[in-house]
């Protein structure tokens, strides 16, 4: 029988605010353990939480970008459970009146657009961080710096039909969040986290199967791998008439498999009730409108605009707009350099690979857009050839110097002088008698070899077009 997976994703995003959601402790990542706490986020008796205005604003902004409806009247609720990462023994979250609901993201799969529904988006506080490795094997260690960092929880509908679609959904969601500039979205630092629910059912069947929840994936690729593994595991179980139990599974990145999390038998019973320490919030239509009017251009819009304005292929526009700062870099360049095709080739080729090799984000590139354009113009003028230009770009990344300075210092300017190039060819022919006779005996390939030798003699600086012409001419007459 053919089975199809039904996948829903739950994403937690830490908001990029200066202070925590309900107190004024800094929300910065990486401080020493327990240096960013206060009586409110430590849950000491007698303290009162007060909502950070920016958190609501960022929440509304994100909800609108994800096409959600905003709830006009919202409140916070207590989610009760005992765990050492939670100093109050409850988490302030939202239950029946979440910030927003019923949105969607359009994702691109195999060239067609699929619409993935978003069930809800709500605000809550993050919990503390537990470390399990320390001097004492019988202990865990708690850092409450993360307690109270503002979180958005974004829950998708079970609309996702393959692990690859889950990957595309996450990539699109992250791009939108980055464009909005509301989160760092750094999975390694935990500012974006994703849990997945997956079940399978016979193709065409409406009823949902028993789902499992997958946790502990540290990258979008890990989410995809975990879902692929779980899809196969569940399909095999079904084919062998084994029961699939509803449970939480941890993804083991090293072993590339899911493992059962030791859980207590009892089901979760969070006993939500309205948080009495926080008053409700009314979100006015005019405030929603003002945030809506100030939304930045979003990935899909930028994609369509770039596609139409710069003669790009869909593939090129997709990569350029996958990162807001990469797209901005391109547009700064395109303002002063009209050969868009060449600019795109350079950006998606050499430029991106220089960035990736150094693990640098486009906005931190040591080579500014106008410096790259300068290099392209020098190359277009024939001062250096393409190969040299790539080496110059590497040197620009390494030293931060401009292309002009590097070409001058390293004497890289291309040799186009025919007299000089003729001399080089004469020497090369003299030094390579057997390839020369090979060529004359009809081995076309030998010409490439001789050409390479000549180029080497010129230290890579020979104008390839001119040297090719000269060589062919000389071989004809030789």
């Amino acid at each position, binding site marked *: 029988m053919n089975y199809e997976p039904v996948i829903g994703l739950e994403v937690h995003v830490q908001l990029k*605010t*200066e*202070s925590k959601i309900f107190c*004024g*402790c*800094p*929300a910065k990542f990486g401080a*020493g*353990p*327990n*240096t*960013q*706490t*206060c*009586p409110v986020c*430590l849950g000491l008796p007698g303290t009162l939480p*007060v*909502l*950070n*205005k*920016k*958190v*609501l604003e960022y929440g509304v902004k994100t909800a609108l970008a994800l096409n959600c409806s905003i709830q006009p*009247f919202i*409140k916070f609720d207590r989610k*009760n459970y*005992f*765990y*050492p990462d939670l100093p109050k023994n409850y988490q302030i979250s939202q239950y029946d*009146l979440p910030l927003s609901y019923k949105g969607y993201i359009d994702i691109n799969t195999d060239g067609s657009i699929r619409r993935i529904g978003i069930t809800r988006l709500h605000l809550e506080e993050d919990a503390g961080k*537990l*470390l*399990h490795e*320390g*001097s*004492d*094997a*019988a*202990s*865990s*260690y*708690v*850092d*409450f710096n993360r307690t109270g960092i503002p979180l958005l929880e974004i829950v998708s509908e079970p609309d996702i039909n393959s692990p690859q679609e889950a990957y595309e959904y996450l990539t699109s969601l992250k791009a939108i969040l980055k464009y909005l500039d509301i989160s760092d979205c750094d999975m390694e630092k935990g500012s974006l986290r994703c849990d997945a629910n997956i079940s399978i059912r016979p193709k065409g069947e409406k009823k949902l199967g028993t789902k499992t929840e997958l946790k502990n994936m540290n990258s979008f690729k890990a989410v995809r791998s975990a879902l692929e593994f779980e899809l196969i595991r569940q399909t095999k179980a079904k084919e062998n008439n084994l029961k699939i139990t509803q449970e939480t599974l941890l993804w083991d990145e090293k072993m590339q498999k899911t493992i059962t999390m*030791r859980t207590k038998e*009892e089901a979760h*019973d969070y*006993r939500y009730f*309205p948080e*009495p320490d*926080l*008053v*409700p*919030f*009314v979100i006015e239509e005019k405030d929603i409108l003002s945030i809506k009017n100030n939304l930045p251009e979003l990935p899909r819009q930028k994609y369509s605009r770039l596609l139409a304005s710069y003669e790009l292929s869909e593939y090129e526009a997709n990569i350029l707009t996958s990162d807001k700062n990469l797209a901005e870099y391109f547009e700064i360049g395109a303002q002063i350099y009209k050969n868009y095709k060449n600019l795109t080739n350079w950006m998606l080729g050499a430029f991106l690979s220089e960035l990736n090799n150094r693990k640098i984000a486009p906005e931190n590139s040591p080579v500014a857009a106008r410096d790259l354009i300068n290099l392209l113009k020098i190359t277009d003028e024939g001062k250096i050839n393409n190969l040299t230009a790539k080496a110059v770009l590497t040197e620009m990344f390494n030293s931060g110097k401009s292309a002009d300075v590097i070409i001058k210092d390293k004497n890289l300017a291309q040799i186009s002088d025919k007299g000089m190039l003729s001399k080089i060819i004469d020497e090369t022919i003299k030094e390579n008698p057997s390839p020369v006779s090979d060529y004359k005996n009809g081995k076309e390939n030998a010409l490439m070899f001789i050409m390479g030798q000549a180029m080497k003699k010129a230290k890579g600086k020979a104008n390839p077009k001119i040297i090719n012409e000269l060589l062919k001419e000389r071989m004809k007459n030789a």
Partner: protein
Amino acid sequence: MAISKEQVNYTANLARIELTEDELNILSRHLDDIIKFIDKLKDIDIKEVAPCSHVIPIRNVFREDKAHKSLDVKDALQNAPAKENNFFKVPKVIE
């Protein structure tokens, strides 16, 4: 509706309270009375009453997104029953 001992035990477990057999018996009776008392609310007609989310009629209380100084680590940890290297130390929660 009578409150069973199992229900009392379940609730006690959620609150991490351990009860003796005697306490269980007393509490299931007490809880039963409390629930019956609260059940009286069901007799009231609330068709015209808006749901109450909060008892104080105030809305939209915010603070600006400004960071203040946090507690000194020493102070943050001063009430911790166990600590090590500026961490709160707790019994291991995973195996």
